[in-house]
């Protein structure tokens, strides 16, 4: 589904990704770990097409299409979803309106009609329940005055409604207490299926106790320097990142 080959990317003038390769197939869950400043978040933004995050070399194929050729919104409509580490507030725009506009944009791209408002309302309430958010949150401004944990659950709810093919979750566990973490993990696990791939970007292995990854990759210096299964994450937790970076160097 996602094939990243020798990707080089810069933010402003600074090259952050220096030849990163990654293969993700439908149905798989990948965890990308690494020390601070290794380029984990940058990878997510480059794939999502954030402004000023420039791919300067290599290639990215998404579902057989050249991802780097697409606009930000086109990537989203094709089914790439990025759950943000720090979701931004949009005052005055109700969550409900925002969500419906987004869902309709994706549906239009697939040649489907706009979703019926009543039906959508029902669906949105269901998803709210699934992530343990009161449905009053649908009426409030997007992330407006939400706590850190509420913002993260709101991201997850959006992901559930948009039903993307590829979910990239950027440090979704940061700022969550253990109960909230469990709720989020359950939500993500419920979305796992053979047609969907999930990429978890995380600093800590804690999240991986709840969402068992098929593959774990260590990102350092803008490249993936080691890949393995869940045991690699446990090893990292025990020993830190130092030994790998040394081993590779």
């Amino acid at each position, binding site marked *: 589904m996602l094939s990243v080959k020798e990707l080089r990317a810069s933010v402003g003038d600074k090259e952050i990704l220096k030849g990163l390769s990654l293969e993700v197939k439908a149905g798989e869950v990948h965890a990308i770990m690494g020390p601070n400043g290794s380029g984990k978040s940058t990878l997510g933004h480059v794939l*999502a*097409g*954030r*402004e000023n995050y420039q791919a300067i070399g290599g290639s990215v194929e998404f579902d057989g299409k050249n991802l780097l050729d697409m*606009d*930000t*919104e086109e990537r*989203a*409509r094709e089914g790439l*979803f*990025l759950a*943000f580490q720090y*979701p*931004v*507030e*949009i*005052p*005055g*725009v109700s969550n409900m*309106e*925002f969500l419906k*506009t*987004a869902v309709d*944009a*994706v549906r239009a*791209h697939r040649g489907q009609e706009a979703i019926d408002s009543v039906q959508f309302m029902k669906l949105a309430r269901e998803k709210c329940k699934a992530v343990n958010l009161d449905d009053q949150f649908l009426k409030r*401004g*997007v992330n407006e005055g939400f706590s850190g944990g509420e913002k993260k659950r709101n991201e997850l709810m*959006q992901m559930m409604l*948009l039903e993307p093919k590829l979910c990239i979750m950027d440090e979704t566990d940061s700022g969550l207490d253990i109960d909230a973490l469990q709720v989020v993990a359950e939500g993500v696990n419920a979305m796992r299926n053979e047609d969907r791939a999930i990429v978890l970007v995380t600093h800590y292995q804690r999240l991986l106790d709840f969402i068992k990854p098929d593959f774990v990759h260590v990102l350092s210096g803008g490249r993936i320097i080691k890949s393995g299964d869940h045991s690699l994450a446990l090893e990292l937790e025990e020993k830190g990142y130092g030994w790998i970076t040394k081993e590779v160097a």
Partner: protein
Amino acid sequence: MSQSEQAQIDTLLKNDYEAGFYTSVESDTLPPGLDEDVIRFISNKKGEPDWMLEWRLEAYRGWLEMVEPEWAHVRYPKVDFQALSYFSAPKSMADKPKSLDEVDPELLRTYEKLGIPLHEQEMLAGVAVDAVFDSVSVGTTFRAKLFEAGVIFCSISEAVHEYPELVKKYLGSVVPRKDNFYAALNSAVFSDGSFVYIPKGVRCPMELSTYFRINEAKTGQFERTLIVAEEGSHVSYLEGCTAPMRDENQLHAAVVELVALDNAQIKYSTVQNWYPGDKEGKGGIYNFVTKRGVCHDSAKISWTQVETGSAVTWKYPSVVLRGDNSVGEFYSVALTNNHQQADTGTKMIHMGKNTRSTIISKGISAGQSQNAYRGLVRMSQRAEGARNYTQCDSLLIGDRCGAHTFPYIESRNPSAVVEHEATTSKVSEDQLYLCQQRGLDAEKAVSLIVNGFCKEVFKELPMEFAVEAGKLLEVSLEGSVG
């Protein structure tokens, strides 16, 4: 306008032709220039009584001694008042476009986006529509219902003939003839406009809209509106519509006067979407408007405006809170794009005890436009316990536009409370990114963010107007990102 009324006016006009003292009565359009003869001509064309003519002349004489104001934060080439023509008869059917095929496709594209039905597009674009379709059907049922309630809603020209006592009593009572340069000019040469009278204790059974008057004689560039709400009455009035209207006149100088007697309530909503000029800032309407209302005891006047059009806007809908316990409100969204300039705001003049006013102003600047809020809150000596709350927010899109705030606060009463809050923000890249990552294109994203920003004002608009206003912002913001 019904046929009998038309006939009535025709008769009146004809009568005056016979008694005409002006030689070129044959002509339908005056050559450029303004002097007393021009005013006599206009008054004569409209078959006005002598008192009305005298009223106009007095305004004109005052105007001659006034100078054009220059304090507003706008720049534009000076208007040559002698180069304007002050009277032109409505275009004859023969001169109008025969069908929408003859209308500027750009205009049609905008109508399409605003979702305006085809027959309304024809009206707005000034197509010579079939008489069968004429607003008669809507107009007559509408009039009958109002008549039943005792509400008068007609053109100001008609009112001068039909209700001279009311017009004499209230015209110029809120905005005096020599109030300011443009108001004086308007008083001298006003073309037409609306007159509304709500009798004592009556709740007007429907929203009154200029829209219903659209097929009547063109109101022209010097529009004059007078609304009188008798004791304990209620009225909601809608001015303008979201569709851009074709208009060849560059200068618009309207005057609107509202009179809310004891316990009366007037809600006045405006959507202004005159031609803003092209992307390079060529052309466009100069909109210099004087709008003011006076509140008697426990009365309430609420102004809501959505201003997206015109090249230059100069407008301060105000409330004089003369009576005790009266309430003034001003809710405004002013959007400027490309090279548009707006200097708009309000004046709340607190004279009575325990008077209250609320000002919510949302300015949005995009392109290379300049958007200024200018507001005065005056607490007079007598305004015991008066309160004002002002919230003034500016939103910038891009980095070549400007937002300015000029608040004036004068308080002569120590018990009066004035609060002022102001914010300036930008549509952030992060907000756009979040929207785009969820599948919205940049323009849709900006429109969504801007609509959210304006929410407090939009909720004051009548329901269907609010939906249209949202769409209007979207269209007006086209090309502001990307």
